[in-house]
């Protein structure tokens, strides 16, 4: 069993969660000012690091809240979880 700590509910089975991809991607303030390449970069391009990754999770079968996690993609160790709107650790 892979346990993920929800910021509200504490440690729960991975099965209760759904993955939301890379965190902290900000929508461009003025999309009209972007080139097609810049817009495509915002829409489609994501980091795929070997090591620390900041990502979003949803506690889908629990409290249904979105939150952020700092996870090591090699070891799967979740080094931190924090609520939406909170500073990246």
């Amino acid at each position, binding site marked *: *069993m892979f346990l993920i700590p929800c910021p*509200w*509910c*504490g*440690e*729960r*089975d991975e*099965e*209760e969660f759904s993955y939301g991809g890379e965190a902290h991607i900000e929508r461009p303030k003025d999309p009209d000012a972007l080139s097609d390449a810049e817009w495509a970069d915002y829409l489609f391009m994501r980091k795929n690091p070997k090591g620390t990754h900041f990502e979003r999770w949803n506690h889908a*079968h*629990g*409290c*249904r*809240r979105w939150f952020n996690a700092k996870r090591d993609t090699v070891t799967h160790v979740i080094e931190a979880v924090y609520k939406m709107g909170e500073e990246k650790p």
Partner: protein
Amino acid sequence: MAHNPLRQSPLAHLGLIARAGQGADDAGIILTEAPFTDHIGLRGDGADTAFAGAVEKVLGFALPISPNTVTGKAKKTALWLGPDEWLIVVPFGAADKLIAALGKALTDVHSAVFDVSDSRTVISLSGANARHVLAKGCGLDLHPRTFGPGSCAQSTLALAHILIHQTDTAYRLYIHRSFAEYLWAWLEDAGAEFGVSISTP
């Protein structure tokens, strides 16, 4: 011709009342359907004193703010579903009045109150092996050191979404009505090795 307006439990066709009392006296688990309670969904900011205060005045007790806990009394309970979401459970027929009272008290507060009475039924699970049966299909740590009377949690049980509330005497399993028959059959199967007894509410 008008349809029969009476409510029907999603387990009505299983003949549970006829089967009640047929299990062994030493059955390890006791299953009871507890249908027809009214359920109210409540959304709002639990940290906002205007919201929490207005709700407390109507309910007569404070909403649970601590995650996965329950407040209230036997005939009116509030279950924590999320930091801005609760389920209020009252006896059959009591929802309309309470929804009106909450709506009135929350007129000027950002909130939502809605009737979800028919979305779920409740299966009560008790007996010496109740926790062992749940452990077969649920990843929650239900050991008394982390989960006891007054605790609630949403998770999956045998892959079905579930809301579990532990009372002093039983686990109350809130299950969406389209999954109720499946879960009942699963519980009878999972409990077979301990002996299953069915009782009436």
